[in-house]
């Protein structure tokens, strides 16, 4: 700081020029302060409104909403169902995802393409498409897997039926959905873990398994805790799988209940819905505090790895078994559901017998040509994604630059608040937006603005991480070197800062674009028939459309996501990071 100010102090530029620099600096400063206040407001106000509606509906402390929830007949079932689904699927997904990550990062079973694609699965195949695909695969009678099982087993005299709409089916779907998030966090941690740690263990006489158990896993405990937190947040907040699979199985979970209180019950029971949201937020926040406490207490300083030197763990005869496991997971999460969607979309009727001769594009015509709302929805979603991505990245960059330059409390607060939405499920945020901005004094209910604001806030953490990464690429020395060479601040920004930040910002933009266009939960709650978006249309077709149209929609949706993801891969190496 003193260096740069002394440089400026010693500068003998004409006072007019110095004035203009100051003016520009303060303009940037003012814009940063204004944006920071706006972001803090947009994130915190809905949360405060959730609390207000729950406990201060008429301005005074009132627990009637809480009493209603506690007194309701569904409470025990709904809460215990949710806890069981989240706990069991998390308990399976964390070891499974970690094992997949370890196999791919450290062993000779590693498959490059699986390693690259696995963390992207939730983006390539949105969970609603995956859930619908599994309904087509594993429903009694007409599910394709049941057809295959009958064909295989009947000649042997056996009979077997699998049904996704059962307890094991629901847990299976939640597990499949959670694994990529675990994989992402754990593979990142393994990549940062110095392979010498594991080699030292081998030299000490520990075998592959003992090393995995006593060194690799404990050394990445913070990542495992983070994965557990993430899986819990995603599990509680997941609405897509819940509405498709759990509801079909007659298993009531919190996310579906919140929707029901707000959209099915009349008049909407805002108080009860917000109480449930606060319950979910409370669980996520306490887990977050626990995880932070845990991460700070432990000794997990990791020395930078020399990954190129890592000796690959030889699995011997287990190598192929491990590869089969990876491919089976990959098929369950992507290929099989996509296959089912494609077949149902192409057939006139959902039928266990696949007959390519009858394939027709009728369902696609119904879904995309005849149905005006769908067309409008795809268009709206793409526009919202384009605008929302720009807004999120723009705001994220300004705040990241501001937080770097200024040490004010506001800068710190704004930087922290941009990461906060990661802790809350889309559903809680959407409910918060509904109760905060839909009615007076904002009157944004049913408008595209409400959706846009909600999207920007929901994906602010991802945008902010991309922006922070972009800012981090510019060392202070680079800016100082530019100043030493006599460049003005404007020139430094144009010639040094902007070109260095741009690639990271472009890939961040692509990520936020895909996330917004694929968002289902907030879309289903906040969009209307007049202002439809993709998530909303799929959700309402599930309630009242033909299976063929639904398959065409979900398939088209997944296809669009894949295309957009591929384009952004081409544009710049898209980086996926969990806040």
């Amino acid at each position, binding site marked *: 700081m003193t260096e740069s100010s002394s440089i400026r102090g010693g500068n003998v530029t004409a006072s007019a020029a110095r004035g203009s620099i100051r003016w520009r600096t303060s303009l940037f400063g003012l814009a940063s302060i204004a944006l920071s206040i706006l972001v803090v407001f947009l994130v915190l106000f809905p949360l405060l409104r959730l609390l207000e509606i729950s406990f201060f509906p008429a301005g005074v402390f009132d627990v009637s909403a809480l009493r209603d929830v506690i007194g309701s007949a569904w409470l025990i079932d709904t809460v215990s169902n949710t806890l069981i689904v989240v706990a069991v699927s998390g308990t399976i997904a964390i070891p499974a995802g970690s094992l997949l990550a370890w196999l791919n990062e450290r062993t000779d079973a590693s498959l490059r393409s699986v390693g690259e694609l696995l963390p992207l699965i939730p983006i390539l195949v949105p969970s609603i498409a995956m859930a619908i695909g599994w309904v087509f695969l594993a429903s009694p009678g007409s599910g394709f897997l049941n057809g295959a099982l009958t064909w295989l087993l009947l000649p042997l005299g056996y009979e077997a039926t699998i049904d996704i709409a059962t307890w094991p089916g629901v847990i299976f779907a939640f597990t499949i959905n959670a694994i990529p998030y675990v994989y992402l966090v754990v593979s990142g941690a393994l990549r940062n873990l110095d392979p*010498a740690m594991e080699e030292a*263990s*081998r*030299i*000490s*006489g520990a*075998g592959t398994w003992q090393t995995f158990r006593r060194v690799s896993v404990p050394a990445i405990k913070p990542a495992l805790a983070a994965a557990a937190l993430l899986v819990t947040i995603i599990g509680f907040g997941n609405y897509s799988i819940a509405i498709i699979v759990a509801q079909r199985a007659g298993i009531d979970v919190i996310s579906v209940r919140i929707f029901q209180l707000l959209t099915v019950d009349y008049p909407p029971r805002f108080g009860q819905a917000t109480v449930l949201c606060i319950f979910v937020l409370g669980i996520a926040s306490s887990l977050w505090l626990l995880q932070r406490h845990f991460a700070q207490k432990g*000794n997990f300083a990791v020395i930078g790895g020399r990954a190129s030197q890592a*000796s690959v763990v030889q699995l011997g005869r287990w190598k192929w078994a491990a590869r089969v496991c990876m491919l089976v997971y990959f098929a369950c999460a992507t290929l099989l559901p996509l296959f089912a969607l494609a077949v149902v979309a192409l057939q006139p009727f959902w039928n266990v017998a696949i007959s390519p001769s009858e394939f027709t594009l009728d369902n696609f015509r119904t879904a995309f040509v005849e149905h005006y709302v769908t067309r409008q929805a795809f268009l709206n979603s793409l526009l919202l994604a384009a605008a929302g991505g720009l807004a999120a990245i723009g705001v994220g960059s300004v705040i990241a630059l501001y937080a770097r330059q200024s040490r004010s409390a506001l800068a710190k607060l704004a930087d922290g608040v941009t990461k906060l939405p990661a802790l809350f499920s889309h559903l809680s945020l959407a409910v918060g937006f509904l109760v905060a901005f839909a009615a007076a004094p904002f009157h944004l209910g049913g408008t595209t603005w409400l959706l846009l604001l909600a999207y920007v806030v929901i994906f602010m953490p991802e945008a902010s991480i991309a922006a922070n990464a972009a800012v981090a690429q510019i060392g202070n020395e680079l800016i100082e070197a530019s100043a030493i060479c006599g460049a003005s601040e404007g020139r430094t920004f144009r010639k040094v800062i902007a070109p260095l930040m741009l690639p990271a910002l472009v890939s961040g933009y692509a990520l936020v674009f895909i996330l917004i266009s694929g968002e289902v939960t907030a879309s289903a709650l906040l969009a209307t028939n007049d202002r439809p978006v993709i998530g909303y249309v799929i959700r309402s077709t599930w309630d009242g459309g033909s299976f063929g149209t639904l398959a065409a929609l979900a398939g088209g949706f997944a296809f669009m996501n894949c295309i957009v993801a591929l384009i952004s891969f081409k544009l710049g190496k898209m980086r996926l990071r969990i806040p």
Partner: protein
Amino acid sequence: MSQNERIRVVSLTKRFTRRDGGGEVVPVDNVSFSVGDREMVVLLGPSGCGKTTLLRCIAGLERPDSGQIFIDGRLVFDSASNIFVPPEKRFVSMVFQGYALWPHMTVFDNVAYPLTCRNVPRRDLRSRVIEALGVVGLSGLDSQYPNQLSGGQQQRVALARAVASQTTTIFFDEPLSNVDAKVREQLRNEIQRLQQSLGFTGLYVTHDQVEAMALAHRIGLLREGRIEQIGSGKDLYWNPRTEYVANFVGSANLWKGKIKASERDSVIVQTDFGLLKAKQPVQQRYSVGDSVTVLARPEVIKLVESPVDTLNCSFAGTVKHRSFLGAYVETTVAVSDRLVRVASTAMDSVPEGENVFVEINPQHLVLLSGHD
């Protein structure tokens, strides 16, 4: 295989295919050598010479492509019969460059780890860990976590972990390159002391010739995956087989020449700046016309005002450059168009620009056959 040999490497080769498809790298190229009981062998070489890969092959962290490795008489790798004993079954210890301490374990647990892996009974465990920590001077730090220690202390923990286990073979992979100069010297002395008192067999990889000289019973100098010369430090310094060895170990004046006359115990060599007299080597006799390279270490050359000793060869020159290095002064003297490096004590130094004579005792010149 002789009784006191602990490690034996036979025709070991390891190849890597370049990632960009640009052919093959051979970091270990048909290497054979052995390490005796209680012997410390240092593999020395510049970065990229394959010394670390060779060590990792012997430790079992890399799988070589061909050759054999014996540890304590047991065949642990043989490409012909497809034997590959994994590192955990080779019964060795290793000290890593980056310490490789497990951050989630205390110092005690780190040191105890190899013992628990090898099923040492609980009652022996504690005393052995405490003893090992005492040996490396870390008594009382057993309940600390690695990240609470300095770099030097962390490497001491790694050292304790290596000596606490029951193995008597310890591999060192550039263990001192991550600590600063003073600590490096301390730890080097420590390793030397431990090696003498505990009597373990060591194989040590480094690029630092001072470290190698100080620690080694024998140094294996590596060049592009091959052992260029193996022998004691003194041997490599005074009897280098090639110019590469002469240059890598210490500093050297190397002059190309031809044998002009050959007698029973001396030869005359014609060099660019005149005739030089040198001893006839015992093991190899040179005859007239042979190409040789003359090696003169800077400290065997004297600077004198006028030639004194007629038995020595003297050449007139001018002092071009002088660097004061504390214990000695390094002087560069131009003799005709050649630069000669001379190391002398600070008291004998001559100012820049002065005319001097360089005087060389034939007894201290070394002849290398041919040119590199």
